[in-house]
């Protein structure tokens, strides 16, 4: 594990020096702020979305509405930006051959990259959520929130539920990150991998709305982006969350294993 941690540490260092990291994180925190400002200028509410009608009553509704809006393409894009680049950029810079002749084997090297991607994804979602809570509270107040079962919970309980929801939201986010890592390894091209990851996320949604394919819906990655809503029922509905866990694993684990096998066995010809 030591070797993977060495790789992880240096991947973080590289991410800190890359513009795209700040582009992604910047978008993750800028969008909630813009959304909160938009809320103050509008008197109406997006009533067709869960919690949409509460955005003027409590700031806690704002991160929840963002999670729903952001799942379409914003958060997948923010994640893909780094996940799709993290292996392919080594191909682009020709640095794969440089780092593969040092003291860390290919497996741990990729593991470090995967861990760095997860760190970035968790950071982006968390930062987005925290900023959304702060900006939302600033415009609508840190007030009690009504759950999907119609029960009113205190602001403190609501805050806990919002952060727990962010945690559940990370399940499909990390599956997207795994797909990004796989495409980054396969395509050896950053742009192709980023766009490909986003296309994959959009494709799941497309399948989800196609008529006649309703039976597939519970097993689509896009569906798992609303699993967190189980937390906002009384009593808590764990079924969608558990399903999100195993469905997302079905996508993430094969993607990571394939990425690993390809990365370990591939010829490093370029650079």
């Amino acid at each position, binding site marked *: 594990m030591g070797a993977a941690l060495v790789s992880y540490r240096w991947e973080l260092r590289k991410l800190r020096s890359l513009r795209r990291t700040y582009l992604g994180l910047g978008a993750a925190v800028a969008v909630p702020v813009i959304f909160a400002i938009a809320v103050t200028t509008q008197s109406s509410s997006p009533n067709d979305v869960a919690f949409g009608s509460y955005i003027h009553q409590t700031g806690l509704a704002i991160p929840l509405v963002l999670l729903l809006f952001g799942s379409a393409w914003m958060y997948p894009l923010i994640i893909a930006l780094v996940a799709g680049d993290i292996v392919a950029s080594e191909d682009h810079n020709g640095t794969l*051959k440089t780092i593969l002749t040092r003291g860390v084997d290919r497996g741990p090297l990729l593991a470090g990259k995967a861990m760095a991607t997860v760190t970035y994804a968790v950071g982006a979602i968390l930062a987005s959520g925290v900023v959304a809570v702060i900006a939302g509270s600033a415009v609508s107040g840190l007030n009690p929130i009504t759950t999907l079962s119609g029960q009113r919970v205190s602001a403190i309980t609501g805050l806990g539920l919002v952060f727990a929801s962010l945690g559940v939201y990370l399940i499909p986010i990390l599956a997207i990150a795994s797909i990004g890592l796989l495409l980054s390894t396969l395509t050896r091209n950053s742009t192709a991998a980023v766009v490909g990851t986003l296309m994959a996320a959009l494709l799941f949604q497309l399948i989800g709305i196609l008529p006649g394919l309703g039976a597939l819906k519970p097993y689509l990655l896009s569906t798992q982006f609303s699993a967190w809503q189980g937390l906002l029922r009384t009593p808590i509905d764990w079924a969608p969350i558990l399903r999100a866990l195993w469905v997302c694993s079905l996508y993430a684990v094969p993607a990571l294993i394939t990425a690993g096998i390809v990365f370990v066995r591939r010829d490093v010809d370029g650079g």
Partner: protein
Amino acid sequence: MSVDDRQLRAVHAPIEVRDLVKRYGEIVAVDGVSLTVERGEVFGYLGPNGAGKTTSLRMMLGLIRPSAGSVRLFGRDPLLGIGALRGVAGFVEAPRFYPYLPGRANLELLAGLDRMGIGKTRIDEVLDVVELRDRAKDKVGGYSHGMRQRLGIAAALLRDPQLLLLDEPATGLDPAGMRDMRRLVRRLADGGITVMLSSHLLNEVDELCNRVAIVRNGRIVYEGTLANLKRTASGTWRLHTSDDERAAAVSAAQPGVVLGADDHDLGVSVTAENEQAIAALSVALVESGLGIIELHQHVASLEDLFFALTEQPETDVRQHARLMVAS
């Protein structure tokens, strides 16, 4: 270094390559290369562009998988893991770094990945060796080709290698840069590092290497010292005596010597099996009452030999090579 390491290193040659093959579909980039690089050697891997030098080196460093054959570095197979590269460092093609990080940060990163506890002082040392210390804070993106090349050497030296694999280290450098690179390699070799360096430049290899392998289309057409290549390929001698007509007759009768076609207006051209045959011929000439005015080996330039080996039709080359290897 563990005891195990030291034992491996004492027993095994730095590089042992056996019947190495790399195919890309129909194309055979490396076609049955076998070679051994002994401790302390500066071994030149010489051949024109596209001869399969870089592909061979990539296989030696474990970057690509051979289609057949094997590589052993100090007895270890680089395919089985990064442990085989302990004590080994180098680069293939132009060394590459993260352009958005400073030179020093790049070295720190690689030192970290080496997991050998390489400290800041060692990084300073290698930066001094390649004379990059004053530019170490600048991003690599702004480095010249020569500076990157030197940073590549610095990155290799960080590992304190016993074996250095360098792919065309002087390519793309200006004349002063090439001279500096040659000096650097020479200094490292004098310090006891075994070096394998590939090149398509004959004079570079001639100056630096004790032994060479000349490759063509993925195959080794000559392996040995350049001096030997010069010597064995130049069994032709020029002879000029007080009476060249009689000298020609004496030469024709001398065992081990063949009279060459007389293409000069002055003197006789002979081909000898070896130097003893020439010595015997000179005695025979003197005993026949002839005064030797001139007897010297006709030295083919290395360049001629190199082109002969790498550009002639292949069947000729193979015969030529067999002849030379045999002699």
